[in-house]
């Protein structure tokens, strides 16, 4: 079931979904939305984990570990920064 055509099918549906999800976003939310979506793109960490944990070869292990680290910066930093921004908006308005 995990053939290339199945993956392309998933790709097509997700792209359309992504287009549909974002519409009429107020200007104040542009940066938080960008930052929140950016944190999601750190999903690469999931792929990097399997590569970093493989027994060998050593090259892909090192590359994988570096990818885990970089993606974790993106994920953890991304979600925390987004939360800080949104918390700030709430205080300002209330």
């Amino acid at each position, binding site marked *: 079931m*995990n053939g290339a055509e199945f*993956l392309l099918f998933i*790709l097509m549906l*997700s*792209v359309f*979904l*992504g*287009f549909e*999800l*974002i*519409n009429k*976003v107020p200007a*104040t*939310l542009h*940066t938080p*939305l*960008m930052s*929140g*979506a*950016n*944190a*999601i*793109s*750190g*999903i*690469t*960490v*999931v*792929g*990097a*984990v*399997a*590569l*970093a*944990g*493989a027994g060998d070869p050593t090259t*892909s292990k090192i590359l*994988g*570990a*570096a*990818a*885990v*680290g*970089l993606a*974790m*910066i*993106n*994920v*953890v*930093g*991304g*979600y*925390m*920064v*987004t*939360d*800080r921004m949104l*918390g700030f*908006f*709430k205080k300002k308005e209330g």
Partner: protein
Amino acid sequence: MDTASIIAFGYVIASGLFIFGLKLLGSPATARKGNMISAVGMLIAVCVALLDQGIVDYTWIAGGMIAGGLIGAIAARVVAMTSMPEMVALFNGFGGAASLLVGWAALTPDSSTFTLITIVLSILIGGVTLTGSLVAYGKLSEVLGSGAVNFSGQQIVNSLVILGVVAGAVLFCMNPADPTFLYVVIGLALLFGVMAVIPIGGADMPVVISLLNSYSGLAACAAGFAINNNVLIVAGSLVGASGIILTQIMCKAMNRSLSNVLFSGFASVSNEVT
């Protein structure tokens, strides 16, 4: 349930939470909750990914996770409210770099042509995202000058870089055993990211960061194809597509078109000439 089904099921739940989270992020009342929901999705995805049967050694994973998590958390805490956009650019660049490395690490001697193409794409898009985001960060934080950088013959140089990337990518797919072409593609992708962002002025950087954010999603998506992982494809293409739409919305808010922003540097050169 066997481990493979648990992993697949976890990825389905994570994908659903990303979609729901992005939806909630789009309206002010629910945005913070949406961010939380998408973070929970990420936590689930990472936890089930750790169950992977192919993992025999957790030391490298733990090292990467602890180092990356700490750096990210500290950076997110200490950054000033006014410096948020450049922080996002920096995080985004790291995400692109991660996709580049995943694509590179996925390369095996018996990769199929389809896999090779997706590896090249993740390296290419990831590399452009990395250096493009670093330049955007530099311009916003004024480490680099915030003005547009133009020089004569810039279009020729850019065309040569693009030609070089395409030629390098094709040669790499034909000779995957020879790492030279791989390094050529990585180098030119990194160079192209710089060349694409330097001609754009600092005031337009938010739009550029939004576009690069979309690219980092596409890079994750390409990496997903390279390693046959559907949660990467779903999450990556969601970010890719919604990032493009958000970029459009931001351009409209500034009363500009996207091509106007991207090629503003070149336009100013031709205006000076005429």
